């Protein structure tokens, strides 16, 4: 064991050097060549494994990918992972024995041990609600449905590398199979789901420093995958003439998705942003140079007009050229602009469907427009809503947000957890975006109510709409801008910087 640990440490050192040598563009998804020779700790059921299982086949596959595989059973100490580049948890490992031993390990985890998801904080603890394993004996009809999954996310590193589309694909070859799903927390990213239900995630990830479902923080990347004990060999792939058929190629992507998710997990994560409002403002000033912003407001709004003026002034102070438009102005006002910001003073009814389909980044400060802008579904107070609005909300006024996506530049380097967004409790809007959104913050105690999020360009939005440019929600009801705390102001700047950045 001592020798093994030495090798692991050596491999870890090599990995660290490899990471340093990686170009920045590859920081999120390393090339296979950079992963070759890295050590994988493969945790299986060992002699207790159910028969048949594919553990040996998986181990061989990992070796073929270039990893050095060290296989242990569930009882092995967590320290066995020291120096490893990746921990792979098979469903054959006893989750009761595994417990939470790898939960705090700062080594990426790739797991298809669905029953262990709660131990790792990947999902809540309730079977059938937070996670479930479908098998042909207990759930015969559903064991057919898990042969298909839906491309829920088109813009993650994994999705792009796989070429995932907003359509079904074949997960496993054609027989009723065992597969697991999980319902990750708001800090997770659903890559693919069963039945088009994002809370039945077939493949999901957590970036390092993302908030887990149980409130803990992911110490390294985490991936949940849908496999069962003995169906690795049935992960779909097309060969021969079928591989030349683009439809078949995009259908049979199970193995490619497995490999890519594995590769993502083992790749070094991007550097964590530091909370430094001055540096952030400086970067935003650089980004603002030569850029135009259309600020859409209800002119002469009364309440909120002063705050709108302050927003415009702030944007101008950063170097943006800001044009102010009235909510009733035509959408053509956005031509030639680099960003459209929709004020919370705008009337949803009057703004209608404007700016939803423009190929210009849009930041909405008004959450109630989430449906018209395709941010969420259409069910008011279910798909989107608000806290603190008199007569319109059952929820109390709020001035804190819960940061769940601290890893994203949109989080301004703020640490995960509660952050005081505004000085005093007030109205805060929220929406429930689709899995392609990057969620930065939720309302406290309301993990499904996402207050700050962004859709990358090309993301799948509500109603099948594809984002023609970046989209973001930043909940600033009429006067809230003037009440932002320094952290709230930093979030404002960070979201603007993200929106104009791509």
């Amino acid at each position, binding site marked *: 064991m001592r020798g093994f640990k030495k090798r692991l440490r050596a491999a870890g050192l090599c990995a660290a050097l490899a990471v340093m040598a990686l170009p920045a563009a590859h920081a999120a998804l390393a090339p296979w060549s950079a992963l070759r020779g890295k050590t994988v700790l493969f945790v299986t059921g060992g002699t207790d494994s159910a028969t*048949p299982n594919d553990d040996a086949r998986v181990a061989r596959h990992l070796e073929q990918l270039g990893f050095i595989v060290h296989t242990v059973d569930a009882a092995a100490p967590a320290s066995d992972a020291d120096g490893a580049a990746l921990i792979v948890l098979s469903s054959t490992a006893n989750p009761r024995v595994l417990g939470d031993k790898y939960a705090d390990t700062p080594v990426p985890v790739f797991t298809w041990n669905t029953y262990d998801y709660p131990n790792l904080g990947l999902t809540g603890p309730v079977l059938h609600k937070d996670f479930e394993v479908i098998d042909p004996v207990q759930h015969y009809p559903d064991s057919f449905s898990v042969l298909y999954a839906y491309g829920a996310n088109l813009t993650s590193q994994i999705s792009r590398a796989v070429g995932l589309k907003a359509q079904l694909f074949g997960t496993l070859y*054609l027989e009723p199979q065992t597969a697991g799903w999980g319902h990750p927390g708001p800090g997770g990213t659903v890559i693919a789901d069963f039945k088009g239900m994002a809370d039945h995630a077939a493949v999901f990830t957590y970036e390092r420093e993302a908030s887990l479902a149980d409130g803990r923080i992911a110490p390294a990347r985490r991936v949940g995958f849908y496999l069962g004990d003995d169906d690795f060999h*049935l992960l779909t*792939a*097309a*060969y*021969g003439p079928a*591989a030349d058929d683009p439809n*078949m190629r995009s259908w*049979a992507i199970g193995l490619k998705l497995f490999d890519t998710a594995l590769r993502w997990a083992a790749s070094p994560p991007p550097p964590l942003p530091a909370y430094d409002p001055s540096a952030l403002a400086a970067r935003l000033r650089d980004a603002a140079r030569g850029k135009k912003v259309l600020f859409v407001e209800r002119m002469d709004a009364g309440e909120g007009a002063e705050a709108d003026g302050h927003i415009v002034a702030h944007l101008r102070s950063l170097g943006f050229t800001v044009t102010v438009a009235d909510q009733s102005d035509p959408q053509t006002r956005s031509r030639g602009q680099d960003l459209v910001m929709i004020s919370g003073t705008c009337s949803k009814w009057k703004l209608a469907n404007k700016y939803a389909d423009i190929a210009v980044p849009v930041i909405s400060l008004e959450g109630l427009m989430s449906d018209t802008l395709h941010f969420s579904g259409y069910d008011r107070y279910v798909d989107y809503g608000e806290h603190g609005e008199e007569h319109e909300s059952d929820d109390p006024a709020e001035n804190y947000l819960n940061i769940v996506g601290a890893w994203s530049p949109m989080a301004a380097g703020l640490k995960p957890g509660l952050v005081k967004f505004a000085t005093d409790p007030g109205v805060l809007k929220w929406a429930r975006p689709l899995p392609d959104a990057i969620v930065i913050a939720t309302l406290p105690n309301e993990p499904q109510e996402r207050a700050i999020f962004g859709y990358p360009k090309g993301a799948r939005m509500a109603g099948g709409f594809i984002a023609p440019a970046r989209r973001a929600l930043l909940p600033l009801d009429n006067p809230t801008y003037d009440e932002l705390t320094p952290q709230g102001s930093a979030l404002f700047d960070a979201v603007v910087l993200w929106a104009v950045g791509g």
Partner: protein
Amino acid sequence: MIRRSSAARIGAMLLVTSALGASLAAAAGELPYRVLHRIPLSGAAPVQALAYGPGGKHLYAAAGAEVLSFQAATGASEAVVKVPGQVAGLAASPDGGGTLYVAVRAPARLFFLGLNPLRVRSSVPIRGGAPSALLYEPAEHALYVESRSGRTVARLDSADGKTVAVTRLQGDLEQMTGDGRGTVYVANAASDAIDVLASGNMKSLGAIPTPDCRAPTGLDLDPVGRRLFVACSNGTALIIDTDMGFAFEQLAVQKATGLRTLFAFHPNGPAGWKGGAFIAGAGPALDAIRMNAFISYTAAGSMPLPGRATALAASPAAGQLSIALAPRDGAAAHAASAADEPRQQAGMQILVLGSSGGAQ
């Protein structure tokens, strides 16, 4: 990416080690087949090809430069026709009042034999090198002639033998099969892959890899289920979904060279089988894969063979599976003799198997 089963391997080993001394029918208990006839052959040349005639009433065998016919029901010898060279392949068709296609190695020619009586009607030269195998696809009115030495596969018009197209492939070409609707598959032992050809123009459509299956030699297709059954020399059989090129099932079979595969009896196989793939070659046994459904196959056991298999044929109409056998040589023969096999191993022969019960 395949499923492995050890059942067939274990079954084969048990049968080979414990039951070779018993009669074949008894040893074959695991398979729903019994030996209907044993047709001894007097010549020294092994049978290179077998084919049932239309309707399954006659069985044709090619040994050396002779084509022999037998009554399928009794195994009685009927006729012998000599051709000018060693025969590489046979195929029968109802066309022209009954035709037997005979591919001869040297000179490389395709002979058309009338069946009633059995006699040569005509012949045409074959391009692409000395033939090593012949495949007939009635739905395409096509014959496919493989040349192992020339590394070619030629498509011929089955009406007149005219060469339609020839393709050249790399590697070691082994058994071929076709789906009758535009695709021909060729096992390639050198590349561990199945070459896929468009039968219309004989252009390559790509290659399907045979993961974990080394040196594939045996190949047959269930054209309805679109499953390829591949037998490999390393003791592995694969079942491949041709629509995806995906090997979804892996089963253990005997380790042997020269394995040939035959899919037969779909949908009404013996003992409730929906079909079966049969594998035999230079090894000790006939291995069977049972089709339970299009997505479900199991190793169905083995039958020890008193010699090496040189050709396979089946007739759904006759309900028969025939295996041409030749004496083993070298170590294989020695091992077999230790198992009290020499009496059964003597000489060339054809075993004609039929259902031992159950629905046909």
